[in-house]
């Protein structure tokens, strides 16, 4: 056991918190997607850490799945952003305001 679990968790928590903060304060849609990626990858780090800690491969498989899911999510996000861009030429989420109340 090289690096203790604690370091994994610190990095993971840092990434996750960074991502969450990004979601809360950023307005650019592309950056929002980026922030979400950060959160998912934070979780991935933790998964690998736990996987090593318990000495099982489950966590690594989980991480692999997460990567694919994250990619799919980003691709769809980008696709939608492109569509919005073509229609309205905005990238600011706060401009998405037709639906409210």
């Amino acid at each position, binding site marked *: 056991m090289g690096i203790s679990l604690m370091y994994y968790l610190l990095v993971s928590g840092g990434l996750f918190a960074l991502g969450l903060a990004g979601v809360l304060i950023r307005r650019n849609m592309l950056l929002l997607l980026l922030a979400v990626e950060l959160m*998912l990858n934070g979780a991935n780090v933790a998964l690998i850490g736990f996987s090593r800690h318990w000495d099982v491969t489950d966590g690594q498989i989980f991480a692999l799945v997460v990567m694919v899911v994250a990619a799919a999510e980003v691709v*769809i996000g980008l696709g939608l952003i492109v*569509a919005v861009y073509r229609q309205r030429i905005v990238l600011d989420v706060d401009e998405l305001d037709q639906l409210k109340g």
Partner: protein
Amino acid sequence: MNIAALPMMILIATAVVALVPSLAPPGRVRHLGPPLVSIVGLVAAAGMSVLLWGDRQYTFYGAFRTDRLTVLMTLIFIASALVTVLMSLREPATVDRRGEYYSLLVAAVVGMVLVAGTGDLIGVFLGIEILSVALYVLCAMEVWRARSLEAGLKYLIVGAVGSALLLYGLTFVFGATGSVSLEEISDIVRVRGLGGEPLLMGGMALVIAGLGFKASAAPFHMWVPDVYEGAPTPITAFMATAVKAAAIVAFLRVFSGALIDVVDDWQMPLAVIAALAIIAGNVGALVQQSFKRMMAYSSIAQAGYLLIGVATGTLLGVRSLLYYLIAYTAMTLGAFILVAIREREVEDGQSIASLAGYGRRSPLHGVVVTVCLFALAGFPPLSGFIGKFMLFGAAVEADLTWLAVVGAVGSAVSVAYYLRPIFVLWGEDPEPGNARTFDPGDGLWVASVLAGLGVVVTSILASPLLDYCREAAQALIAP
């Protein structure tokens, strides 16, 4: 390897095959091929599921478990999807992309079935994500309509955050127990006595937040009205029923199934978000002028009622919850069908005002939606009443009397807004400008009849249905 995963396999194959006919040159095959394939595939999967009703079977090395709960939930998902397919036949969103639409719809069902039958945490996440990703696209399917696009994008961004919370929570649960298998987790938690363990508790809090988001409980509900309003109406109906059911069954699998021994840890937070959902949903629905938006708020409140069943952590609670879920699916679909019809018939079809006098002009739809709304409001003898009554009873039994009181008061408040469309539907005179401009098509008639029958049958056959629900609940809670 046995045939227990066959329904899911059939659904996957359906999703793949449904794409093919839409590549044909414009014409009958291209137009009717995808929905037809979807219907055939869904019915086949449903039939297969019914045959699998029985004791638990494992597939994929234990990653997928087919027990009575899986089968029951699969049938609920498929029923909802079938009605959605029927509703969508003439939906504008499907005009140019029929293959994608139906294929994604079935793919979402695949994700739901995976959630219902999953044997490990990976399946919970993967299933939820499969259905979410498919729905992000479906919501935004009407790309030329800014609102639909906006709904899809909002859902995606906030949904991704929800997924991340869920994932992080599952990671912690894995970290605290050292296993991703739900059955192993259950054993580990019991043997090691992990009640109050900080890592596990943090994990559970995150999972509750993530799944609560998917089930649209408060205070994770803020996306719901916007997305529900913006999405194409059949998709909204599908989200309000099947997606919610999937999130609820994920709750059941993780909490009532694997983590039942630390029920003291998760009961209170679940009860709190259930109560908040009931309050926020019912109160928010009161002032809505749009029927579709009102139903969105209503579905938030209904998520609260459903979560009561999870929060009890008892056999009776789960059983009541399953029954209410079946009933809820039928009555919500029925209410949304009317929106779909009016939306296509007149310009302002989403508003409650546009329903004026509609009941007398089209008695069938009028009666169906009236029955559905009465059921939602919890009028006896309809299934909504039985379900709520049982859920509140289960809450009292589990020492959550305050939650039952919140539910009952919320239910009383909800009568005010559920009745308003009915009054408009039967009471008022149609405005002259409300003449029909567009033919909704036959699919909606069939869907309407199916939903109405669903409500009536669940009400009359309450007793046998409750027996099935008990067996399904036992499959979950008993080993």
